[in-house]
């Protein structure tokens, strides 16, 4: 089971990392903004192709070796899992190295060819674009939150039925493999973590919804299309993930109270189904949003470009812009959002719940 899970997750990472250059915003190449006039440059196309081929090559090598290594001998489950984690990190590190290499090359190319000189930089927005935003309303999050509150009450009511050893960790087969002594706090721990995760997701949802809808002056239609789809589908994906996490963790909690529901194949299928749902959902989301600004061909007005914001992006990955009041902005390398590190509110939304969750889990 471990092997199948790690294989699927690593394959997913490999596929996403390989196709990223073709899913990012049309005017961003390896984290560098390129004026619309030059996005069809042959050299840039070559860079993208070389990146994808290199990452695909290493992915096949790594995954192939992993499969061979597992099949050659009978490996212990935790060995398979540990190696699985290592190859996932290796794959991410390798693709990141290739990204950084081509990020540097693209930056150089942009400078050498003086692509931004002689172009007037501008920012644009449409006063009516807010009316077209289709993100989910915040109160839809009340549903999973209320369900968790109900589960907490149910746990307290059935406190006597809980075993003396409360499970705190579950293996890839859905089997509990770490326990702690029963106390009112340890009995509630899982539901508390769930509630915190839900609040964090709600916070992310609200912060995303309040973030700017950034349009491009040179490809108004394409950028509007992409921004609106990104907002809509990312809010759907986030909500699906919240529902899935709620169901999974509630299932674990109920299994602790009523061990009989953990018998049979459900124990294995539910976590596995969760994994597949999240991965497939993410892939569909990435491709749908990634393709949304590629088909519309726009006539380019000769002498303008979008405001060049490269200096706010460290390595094309980390965004620091004090002048931008948004908490989240669209990622440059990848599909989705990244946080504006210059806005302290963002730390509050993301890191505070994470710190509390870690404190609960490890204290």
């Amino acid at each position, binding site marked *: 089971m471990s092997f199948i899970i790690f294989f699927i997750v690593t394959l997913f990472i490999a596929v996403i990392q390989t196709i990223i250059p073709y899913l990012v915003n049309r005017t961003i190449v390896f984290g560098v903004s390129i004026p619309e006039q030059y996005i069809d440059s042959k050299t840039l196309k070559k860079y993208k192709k070389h990146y994808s081929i290199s990452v695909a090559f290493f992915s096949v090598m790594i995954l192939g070796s992993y499969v061979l290594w597992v099949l050659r001998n009978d490996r212990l489950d935790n060995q398979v899992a540990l190696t699985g984690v290592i190859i996932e990190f290796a794959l991410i590190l390798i693709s990141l190295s290739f990204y950084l290499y081509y990020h540097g090359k693209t930056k150089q190319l942009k400078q050498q060819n003086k692509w931004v000189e002689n172009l*007037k*930089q*501008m*920012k*644009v*927005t*449409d*006063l*009516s*674009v*807010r009316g077209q935003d289709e993100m989910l309303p915040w109160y839809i999050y009340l549903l999973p939150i209320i369900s968790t509150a109900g589960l907490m009450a149910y746990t307290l009511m059935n406190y006597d039925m809980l075993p003396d050893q409360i499970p705190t960790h579950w293996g890839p087969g859905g089997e509990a493999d770490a326990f702690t002594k029963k106390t009112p706090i340890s009995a509630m721990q899982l539901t508390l973590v769930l509630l915190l995760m839900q609040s964090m997701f709600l916070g992310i949802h609200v912060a995303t919804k*309040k*973030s*700017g*809808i*950034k*349009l491009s*002056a040179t490809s*108004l239609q394409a950028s509007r299309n992409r921004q609106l789809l990104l907002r809509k589908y990312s809010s759907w994906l986030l909500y699906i993930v919240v529902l899935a996490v709620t169901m999974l963790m509630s299932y674990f909690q109920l299994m602790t109270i009523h061990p009989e529901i953990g018998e049979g194949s459900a124990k294995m299928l539910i976590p596995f189904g969760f994994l597949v749902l999240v991965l497939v959902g993410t892939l569909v989301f990435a491709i749908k949003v990634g393709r949304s600004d590629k088909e519309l061909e726009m006539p380019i007005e000769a002498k303008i470009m979008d*405001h060049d*914001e490269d200096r706010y992006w460290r390595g094309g990955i980390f965004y620091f*812009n004090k*002048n*931008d*009041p*948004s908490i989240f902005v669209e990622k440059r390398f990848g599909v989705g959002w990244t946080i504006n590190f210059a806005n302290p509110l963002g730390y509050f939304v993301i890191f505070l719940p994470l710190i509390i969750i870690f404190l609960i889990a490890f204290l």
Partner: protein
Amino acid sequence: MQIIISNTSKEPIYEQIYVQIKKQVLTNELQAGAALPSMRELAKDLGISVITTKRAYEELEKTGFIYSVVGKGSFVSEQNKEMILERKMKVIEEQLMAAIQNSKEIGIELPELKELLTMLYMEDV
């Protein structure tokens, strides 16, 4: 209903926003009662400071092109003397331009046109 701002322009950003929204109100592209994005939203959409959009909205409010309702947001004003005057002025300008164009086509000189205008103006009263 686009707002385009340029960082290299001599005009400050708040003024660029002010001028463009004013123009859209005067040309009726933004109709009376239409809701504008909040200052915060506009600042985020343009990636600029809220102070800048606040200043633009304050100017627009001062000159009566928009009004704000606490908790509800900003809207395009309905009745406004200056606004109507300015809009009328624009229409007059356009009609005069058409008259001038026509005069030029058939060779009527400026003094002659002025005379005609004066005559018509007096007659009407």
